[in-house]
């Protein structure tokens, strides 16, 4: 599903040139669950942004679902992201002014989905993450764990082929964190590929493969015993 060759990302300011990613080669199968680990500043988030089409690489090729997307314009990337990629962030990033229901509905609105279908999908997804009873609440009225469940619901509501999670448990206590990881595993088992950046070895255990990044390079790759259903 994903094939990245010699990915390179260089940030330039007036005086300094920083290489965030250097010669990264990566393949991810459909339905795979990959964790990315490494110290702060090693390029994890940069990799995630490029994989999620939020940013373009400075060099190398990136093939996503059979398309060479490395040179896509912002507009093309936005178009391609819709429905194909879901995001889960460490800080939840829900829109404060929208209710739980409305937050989850948003990706479907951008897909231009018919109203009846939207209601069905949103309610189904809210049921799946067990937050239906809070659908008319605003984000600030929820606990961190609940907010992240809403964020997961929003990431999966459009049935994307890839979910990108950037430290999804980073702001949660262990109980809530575990709950969210369970949820992500369920989504993975339902067919979505997941790439998750994490500092937590425990969370990484949920995945099929762990990639370690250091100074922009992939240094190790460990395949875990847990086999994925759609391999």
């Amino acid at each position, binding site marked *: 599903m994903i094939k990245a060759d010699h990915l390179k990302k260089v940030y330039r300011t007036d005086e300094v040139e920083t290489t965030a990613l250097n010669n990264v080669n990566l393949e991810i199968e459909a339905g795979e669950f990959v964790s990315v680990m490494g110290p702060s500043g090693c390029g994890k*988030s940069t990799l995630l*942004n490029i994989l*999620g089409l*939020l*940013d373009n690489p400075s060099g190398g090729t990136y093939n996503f679902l059979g398309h060479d997307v490395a040179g896509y314009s*912002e*507009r093309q990337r*936005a*178009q391609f*992201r*819709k*429905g194909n990629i879901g*995001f889960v*962030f460490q800080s939840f*990033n829900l*829109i*404060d*002014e*929208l209710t739980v229901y*409305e937050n989850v*509905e*948003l*990706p479907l*609105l*951008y*897909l231009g989905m018919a109203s009846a279908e939207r209601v069905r999908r949103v309610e189904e997804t809210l049921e799946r993450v067990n937050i239906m009873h809070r659908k008319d609440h605003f984000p600030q009225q929820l606990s961190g764990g609940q907010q992240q469940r809403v964020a997961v619901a*929003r990431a999966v509501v459009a049935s994307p082929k890839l979910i990108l999670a950037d430290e999804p448990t980073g702001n949660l206590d262990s109980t809530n964190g575990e709950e969210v990881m369970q949820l992500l595993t369920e989504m993975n088992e339902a067919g979505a590929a997941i790439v998750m950046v994490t500092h937590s070895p425990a969370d990484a255990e949920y995945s099929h493969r762990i990639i370690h990044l250091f100074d922009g390079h992939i240094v190790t790759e460990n395949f875990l015993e847990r086999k994925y259903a759609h391999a």
Partner: protein
Amino acid sequence: MLKNYLKIALRNLKKSAGYTVINILGLAIGMTCCVLIALYVWDETSFDRFHDKAEQIYRLRVERYASGGESELTSTASAPMGPAIVQDFPQVEHIARISSRTYLVEQGDRRFYEEEFFWVDSTFFDVFSFKLVRGNPETALTAPFSVVLTEAMAEKYFGRADPMGQILTIEDRDYTITGIVEVAPAQSHFSYDFLGSFTTLEVFAEEPSSEWNWWSLSYHTYLLVAEGASLETLQEGLRELPSRYIGNQESVSGYRQFLYLQPLTDIHLTSHYRYELQPNSHTAYVYVFSAIAFFILLIACINFMNLSTARSAQRAQEVGLRKVLGAQKGQMIKQFLGESVFLSMLALVLALMLIQVLLPSFNQLASKELSLHYIRQAPLVLAMVGFAGLVGLIAGSYPAFVLSSFKPVEVFKGRVQSGASGVFLRKGLVVVQFGISVALIVGSLLVFEQLDFMQNKNLGFEKEQVLVLRVRNNEAVIESYEAFKDELKKQPSVLSAAFSSSIPGRDQFTNVISRQQGMNEEGQTMYILAVDYDFAETYGLEMATGRALSEDYPSDDTSAFVINEAALKALGWQAPDEALGQQLTRQFSDTREVVGVVKDFHFQSLQHSIDPIVFQIRRSWYGYVSVRIATDDVPATVAAIDGVWQAFSPGRPLEYFFLDDDYDRQYRAEQRISKIVTVFTILALFIACLGLFGLAAFTAEQRTKEIGVRKVLGASVAGIVLLLSKDFVKLVSLAFVLAVPLAYFVMNSWLDDFAYRIEISWPIFLMAGLAALGVALLTVSYQSVRAALADPVESLRYE
């Protein structure tokens, strides 16, 4: 999706209610000012357009030149000119002459002086579209002693009785009422209460068509020109018309008269000749007000943009997310523009309410009868909606484009500094706002100062405590004027009294004055004032040399002139003493000796420099009695004077006014302008401050962490307030520097219109600058102090 946008918009507005109020209120006030001024400008520019044939109507004006080069430009023509034009120019379909008078009108025991009595030609209704409610427009004004009156006048004199065919006594003669006419619309350059048939004047043997009357310019003459007729040809033919008829008189008198056409619709804004029916306005004021409206709206729009861009960081996360979830840049632009338009529509609704509330006060301020009817003025209302939409789009465009170009990656990395984008623009806009405000403050201060100067300048005569009685053509009083004055002077509160043909501040006669006797000698047009022996004393005039006209010299009655210093110079004498004993001739025949030179005094408004004026005794010209009084009990004095008046002139009501009020009336237009400019200046400053308040709040909020750290490190509250206020002081100072030359240039050219004007001095600018700075600091300091007093532990934890 629209629902989603609306929800977000409303919830955002609610969340930051303070900013929303500032934003909407500022814009609404801006729009209100703008619409009020637009109504005013619309009103000013649509004068006389209600006539069906407005574009075909012209007024005749006359330029009269003496061989010496002086000229007299009048809005009036002489009686024979109109009929001659109809006769000679087939392209002129009709002419209508108007002559304005004040008459005593009586019906039973109702008796009033009416100042809006017009003699008009029977063609009046052919030229103008004033509506006759009763009577036949073809015949109403044909027969002598016919009069048409307005409904209000009909009610005033006849109550509910039918006035048609009734008799009205005007100056002791009976007139038949032949029609009822609608009141002239407010947008007419003249208004009337009574229209008397012009043919009556001919019966009076005033002989308006007599040859010599070509020189008497007392008839406003309007021409209805055939559609499509060449104006150039007509104008060319008209210019020399008087020469064709009275060429011999011209060569004898050394005077020539030229005729010109004025489009009817231009009169209100551009015509400022002698004998205007009503004081007209100036095109410049229309421009000034339009500019003020534009600037106020600009200030309001700037607030809107500034606050939106400043607050944009709050929306950054939403933008990033929406983009991650698939929103295109175009969609985001639409969303934010939509929000902005939504907000400006809310402001419009508020503005419409404000307009309804404020219109009566504004009308009072501007002396107008403006109204806003949603149905009748549907185009205007639609224009306002469109205009509000446009304001929303313009004001929202910068935030919309900035916000929508946020990159999600940078948002999530926290690289989008809270409101950092557009800091430069925002500062620039604050400079523009305060620049405009400072310029407006300077403008209104200078207008105010000039008015104050005009009202308090030493005029060369004493205008306070003078009660002026209008004598009009009251023969009973004029014929026994000495006895009348003696009776007046017996009143304890009367110091002195003087008859005269006119008074300072009112129109004066002009005559030709020459140094040699005889017709062919070179003369000059000068003002002439017929006075009596007490005039100089009553007005407190000072003599430069010689003496005032005096009872002690019986020959003064027929053989003495007093002139002012301006006349002295105009006649070619260097020193006052040179003139004493010299002969002057008035109107080629009346030769008298100069017995005194009076020091110059302002018998006209300070817009004019002091012109030459000549004084003489001539009872038949007397029209006013000026009574100098010494009392605080005005009502008792007036009652006493009325008693004397009634004894001499039973049955005629006493007409009186105070000289100072009447003189200052000349500045009424300027006073009105001054008030309007002041009000809008205050509003402009208020809106600018509203924006600054919001911006200061935002800056303080944005620097919460910095303030916290500084306080932990030992900064004092005063130090923090200074730190936060410093930036704004810099901006206002820059605005001041930019505004000064602009204000100087504009105001200097305004002041140039006055013959006697103040000089623009730096304290005015300093005052304006300090006022703007003070108000700005006050606005900012509230937020600064609040931020400085905040608990650093709280603010650091918050960050």
